[in-house]
């Protein structure tokens, strides 16, 4: 899949994530004990042989920059192409951001980058998808159908997660219409599409000039008869993270072996930044079950149905149930937690009780001491 470049929309900032994305972009959200959300789509692209990848960014992408560095850990520190972080562009005269809110505006701002690539195809992807796949077959499909735009869809997908809506897909796989029919069995966009690079440039320029900023409506919808636009069905596991519920739900799904195996016990690896960590340490009073535990943890309490990120400490007498505890979280002695999401560096003192239901997890912001 060497003839394809990747563009990842990593500028999304989801207000529905609340405090968790206040100081980081959604793509930099910590997930699954040691990863960041961006790792999934980035690794899927790398594992597909895409070596020219641009990330559009908007606000507060410091943590994204720190995480990705020069791209070495994703094998993207390459001589030719590699990983490009594309900050927003400002017209210097009036200091106004042109990056805007929409995919089309983002694409317009990185046209210089798209033009520099020599790849015939461009893969557009959301930065907030949890997936481990390769796109080789989708590209074959795109070529075989002489498709102009191929959109990946799923019938299983979580409907609310779809950012580009639902489609009517005909038997020949052509997309007939954009459908308001967001039902269980509808073909929902997974948020990835392959498009011929030259066509993308033309479409973005023309939409931008006319102030048409809705990718789904203005690029897909308006061109359904003029262009060959196909749907490519994806049957595997994927999740979009777009609010606290979807984040919590996905984290709890990691306790299913199938989900873990699909994502991680795969020839295709999910790459991430490597940090030096001591192995997890279980003390004499540790009682841990059905939990996903990262290195550096020190556990002397009880942990059930939970995800513990790196260097989390759970002291003696504490009971953790249905929780997500991010890096450097500390739960001192004799506290009881149920359905709590702790952002990085949160400390829960001894003898505290924080209990909710999995349908309504408690969120504790970064660096808080409770």
């Amino acid at each position, binding site marked *: 899949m060497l003839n394809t470049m990747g563009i990842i929309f990593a500028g999304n900032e989801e207000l529905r994530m609340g405090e968790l994305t206040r100081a980081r972009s959604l793509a930099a959200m910590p997930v699954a004990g040691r990863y960041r959300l961006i790792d999934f789509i980035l690794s899927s692209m790398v594992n597909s042989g895409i070596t020219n990848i641009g990330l559009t960014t908007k606000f507060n992408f410091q943590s994204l920059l720190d995480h990705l560095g020069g791209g070495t850990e994703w094998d993207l520190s390459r001589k030719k192409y590699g990983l490009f972080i594309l900050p927003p562009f400002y017209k210097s005269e009036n200091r106004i951001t042109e990056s805007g809110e929409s995919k089309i505006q983002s694409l317009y701002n990185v046209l210089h980058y798209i033009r520099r690539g020599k790849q015939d195809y461009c893969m557009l992807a959301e930065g907030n998808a949890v997936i481990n796949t390769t796109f080789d077959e989708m590209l074959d499909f795109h070529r075989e159908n002489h498709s102009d735009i191929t959109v990946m869809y799923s019938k299983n997908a979580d409907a609310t997660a779809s950012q580009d809506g639902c489609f009517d897909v005909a038997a020949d796989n052509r997309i007939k219409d954009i459908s308001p029919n967001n039902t269980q069995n509808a073909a929902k966009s997974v948020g990835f599409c392959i498009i011929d690079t030259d066509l993308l440039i033309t479409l973005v320029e023309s939409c931008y000039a006319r102030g048409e900023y809705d990718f789904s409506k203005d690029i897909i919808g308006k061109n359904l008869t003029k262009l060959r636009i196909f749907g490519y069905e994806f049957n595997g596991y994927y999740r979009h993270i777009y609010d606290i519920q979807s984040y919590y739900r996905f984290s709890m799904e990691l306790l299913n072996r199938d989900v873990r195996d699909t994502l991680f016990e795969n020839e295709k690896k999910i790459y991430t930044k490597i940090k030096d960590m001591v*192995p997890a340490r279980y003390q004499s009073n540790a009682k841990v079950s059905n939990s996903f*535990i990262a290195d550096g943890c020190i556990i002397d309490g009880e942990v059930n149905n939970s995800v513990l990120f790196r260097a989390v400490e759970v002291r003696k007498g504490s009971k953790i149930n249905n929780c997500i505890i991010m890096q450097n979280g500390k739960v001192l002695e004799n506290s009881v937690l149920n359905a709590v999401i702790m952002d990085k560096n949160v400390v829960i003192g001894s003898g505290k009780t924080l209990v909710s239901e999995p349908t309504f997890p408690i969120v504790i912001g970064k660096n808080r001491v409770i």
Partner: protein
Amino acid sequence: MAKECIAMLLAGGQGSRLGVLTKGVAKPAVQFGAKYRIIDFVLTNCAHSGIDTVGVLTQYKPLLLNTYIGSGKSWDLDRLNGGVYVLPPYMQETSGEWYKGTANAIYQNMEFIEQFDPEYVLVLSGDHIYKMNYAKMLDYHIDKNADVTIAYINVPIKEASRFGILQIDGEGKIIEFNEKPKVPKSDCASMGIYIFNWRELRKQLIRDEADQSSSNDFGKNVIPSMLGQGKALYGYGFSGYWKDVGTVESLYDANMDLLDSGEIGLYDADWQIFSRSPLRPPHFLDRNASVTDSYVTEGCYIDGKVAHSIISDGVVIAKNAAVKDSIIMTDCKIGENAVVNKAIIASGTVIARGATIGTNCDATPQYRSNYCTGGITLIGENLTIGEGVEVGCNCMVTSDIKEEK
């Protein structure tokens, strides 16, 4: 790009007393403490001591060690000027020769050292577990205006005859040095860590090489000879955790020290032990798991019982299996109802369901081995111990054992 001090790390030894553990790899590459290898400790010391140029002298089965070291990035040794260099023996115009002894290994790499034009050369071995700030030792060396400074540690006098023993005066000057003396005159054991003035070392290496009777070893030849020449040799006392992991039992003990004493201090934020981590997800403890007093690292799946053990990455321990006082290396599989007791299981090995390792001391005398003492059982890498098979204590297994029909 002159350097004040560079390190030469002797990593060529086979470490044959580790038995089947060094069948495929050099001793410094043997796994330690769930996610480390022995060499990590010395490379970490270099990184934290500000020594950014390290030559690693290898010759015995270096493939895994070379691959593990790679660019040196994991130890912050991928430097623009300097960094880590693997130095195997090589061919000259007319012939090549293997490293004859520790001193000869450095002798053959004098050209490597010269390119950095160092003032001082730190000579290290790659088979000890300890944390030491070599910068402080260098300060001492400079302060004493020494030709060579030897780090020493006080050992119980009854063990002293296993070491090179220093006698030092009140100023720290070495007045006598005896390699493995039968009757040790002090408890100051050389740790095999030397700082030389490079000009002096260069002279001594050429002199030693010319001596046909020398076995070209620092402890046996170069140091005693320098003492005889009246050079200024100083001892640098070290106190802290230090363990030679040269035997199966000492390697086992050092691992258990990690669990029990914490003396090595893995949690020191200013002295993190660097290692090359595999890229694996967090580990998972399933509903039947019980893990206590243990270290467990990434990629493991545990549904059995683990007590007082060290579990490397990717290990699977099935339901009702029981692992106790053991060291389980990368990607081993322990089957249902299997029992592993006081054992070292090398990487990739499968202990099939119902097998019993190391519980019955009288079992399987045919596998009993001099390598294994202190009741430890050692199973080699990539083996399969069949269903229901029993292996006794003090045994070393080097090939598959089929289940009995």
